[in-house]
């Protein structure tokens, strides 16, 4: 078993190399990089489209030595594989380079966004689990009842609305633009955060977090509820439940002590996967609510062609995804002793 997980950890390395080689390679092809942007500024031709070929621009008179300086400054004077090697070596030493936009080390820029994404993500995660599991159990126990049918309708509706789309609708309804002014339109904390006392900080934070957290829940509400329900139903049809009833145990005892323990196993694996998602997967929700977390950072970096930050975000999110997957397997092993990985 230890062997298996050791191998899994080792496999992170080739995966990581594969993803970064691919993206690093393609990023070199992209027009509108820092050099071209600087050249556009020099020419005073701002607002041009990045789609035109870069070759067409070089014939404009820009002093050759200035160009060389610029290339050296951004590291573009070396061939691609050398640059990739250098970048990789730096990544190993936890140096992700310097952001073109912020002028700070990428790692610092990303680190500053972690708490925001974690706060919203974890809150959403816990609330989802603490609502979906009881709901799923109730639906399984009352399978076929009016309550089951009615809540299924809500679950279906939830499945058909991506979380961030629910966010735009809620913002339209409650953001004060067209209808009611109940919730703030953007940001994850009130503007006057520093001046507030503790109680008003909590209130302000809750006020800002309500809608984004709700949208997180919409995203995984349907799958988690149905998964809980089906998994419990499957167990309620199993032989050991028949045996438990046959020995004369109460229904409550059979459901909650015997069947539920087994039916929660598939849910446990979701926890690991959520790790990667919590930290890095929320581009849409953070963009919708203009919350300055990791997702919004990565999105803006792409828009502004801030390559070091884009690559850094990709590095962090792929590592987290991979670790999350391994964590899922470990949790699976811990909660279900029958599972043996080889």
């Amino acid at each position, binding site marked *: 078993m230890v062997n298996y997980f050791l191998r899994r950890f080792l496999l992170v390395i080739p995966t990581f190399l594969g993803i970064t080689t691919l993206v690093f390679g393609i990023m070199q092809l992209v027009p509108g990089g820092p050099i071209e942007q600087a050249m556009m500024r020099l020419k005073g031709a701002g607002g041009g489209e990045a789609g035109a070929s870069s070759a067409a621009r070089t014939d404009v008179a820009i002093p050759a030595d200035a160009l060389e300086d610029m290339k050296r400054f951004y590291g573009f004077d070396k061939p691609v594989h050398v640059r990739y090697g250098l970048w990789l070596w730096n990544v190993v030493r936890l140096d992700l380079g310097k952001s073109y936009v912020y002028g700070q080390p990428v790692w610092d820029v990303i680190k500053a966004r972690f708490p925001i994404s974690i706060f919203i993500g974890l809150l959403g995660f816990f609330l989802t689990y603490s609502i979906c599991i009881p709901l799923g159990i109730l639906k399984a126990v009352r399978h076929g009842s009016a309550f089951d049918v009615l809540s299924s309708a809500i679950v279906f509706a939830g499945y058909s609305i991506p979380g961030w789309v629910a966010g735009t609708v809620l913002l339209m309804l409650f953001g004060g633009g067209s209808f009611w002014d109940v919730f703030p339109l953007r940001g994850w904390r009130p503007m006057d955060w520093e001046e507030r006392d503790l109680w008003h900080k909590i209130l302000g934070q809750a006020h800002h977090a309500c809608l984004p957290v709700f949208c997180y829940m919409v995203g995984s509400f349907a799958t988690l509820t149905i998964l809980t329900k089906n998994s419990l139903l499957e167990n309620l049809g199993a032989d050991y439940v028949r045996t438990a009833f046959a020995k004369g145990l109460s229904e409550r005892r059979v459901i909650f002590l015997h069947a539920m323990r087994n039916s929660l196993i598939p849910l446990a694996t979701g926890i690991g996967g959520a790790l990667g998602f919590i930290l890095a997967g929320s*581009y849409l929700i953070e963009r919708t609510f203009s919350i300055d977390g990791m997702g919004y950072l990565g999105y803006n970096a792409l828009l502004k062609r801030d390559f070091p930050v884009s690559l850094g975000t990709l590095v962090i999110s792929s590592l987290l995804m991979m670790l999350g997957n391994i964590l899922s397997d470990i949790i699976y092993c811990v909660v279900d002793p029958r599972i043996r990985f080889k």
Partner: protein
Amino acid sequence: MTTDSARAAAAADAPGAALAHVAPPKPSASLFRKRLRKFRSLKRGYYCFLLLTGAYLLSWLLPFFVSNKALVVRYQGKYYYPILQFYSAKTFGMPGIGEAKYRKLAEKFREAGGEDWVLLPLHPYGPNENLLNELEGNPPHPPSRAHPMGTDDRARDVFARLAYGFNISITFALILTVVSYGIGIAIGAALGYFGGRVDIVGVRLVEIWSTVPFLYLVMILSAILLPKYYQGRSDFVQPGFWLLIGIMGAFGWMSMTFYVRGEYLREKARDYVSAAVATGASTPAIIARHILPNALTPVISLAPFTIVGEIASLVALDFLGFGLPAPTPSWGELLGQGLDQIANKNWWLITFAFLALFGTLLVVVFIGEAIREAFDPKPFSRLR
């Protein structure tokens, strides 16, 4: 089932003699037929299926219903069909350059009261047509009689954009499903059928591929590779559309692989496969003709949910600005517009785009539920 039990009963009564009187058993319906019949009996899903299929087929005829090009023009005794062909304004004696403005032409003919006439589509506004010089005030314009869903921030008719967006979204999702399932099934079949070392190495590679953060990678590649503006004649004859399908297909095929691999692992041990081998069928024939039809259950029962996910991904990418090139009609772009100016009173952008998306996805989910129930039934029985 009834014929079987009848035969069994008859055989038990008078073995041998009775067999002559028993009618030859009707060939029982194939499993697929039975499942189809079951699917038809699930009314909600079946009607949703008919509704969606009908709406989608109809959406290919949108130029006849929602367009700024006239269907027929009668001018000076001659008939013109602008829907099929480009006519400059000069053709009909109108001032200006470029394509004739058919709504104005219709008005002119009506005022003149002559023999000439213009047959306009039901909703005579195009999805990419700028209506700035017809409407008062700044865009986006609120819903009105002529524009029941208002206009967007470039003064384009929202209803027309939503309608064409429906056609594009569904087409995109269908093609993407075919592409990603094609890759997934091919690789899953190879892994499952050959097994052994191929399987071990292949599964690892597929696992590696699936730990890629899908959305961000697609965003990066789309930001880099996709043209930002139309480079073709129509929504589908442009490289952006196919490039996006290629990018999303390349990173979205993995989930199906594991299901198909599982099916092949199970099916290849069956007798019919041994029989096929014994009759000298070639390996590709066994994989594609003998086993594949029996391995399609997860493919069919998961396809609707894949389509839901793909429509949602397309809308998300368009919303973020990394989707189909402008000015392709798109639901996600409309949501993005609505969000960017949410502080202004422009509720119609988000509301109608949301309703279109929600309605479509809900219908597909209902279809998916019914298909799943017909193809992969899990009769839950409580033992008590």
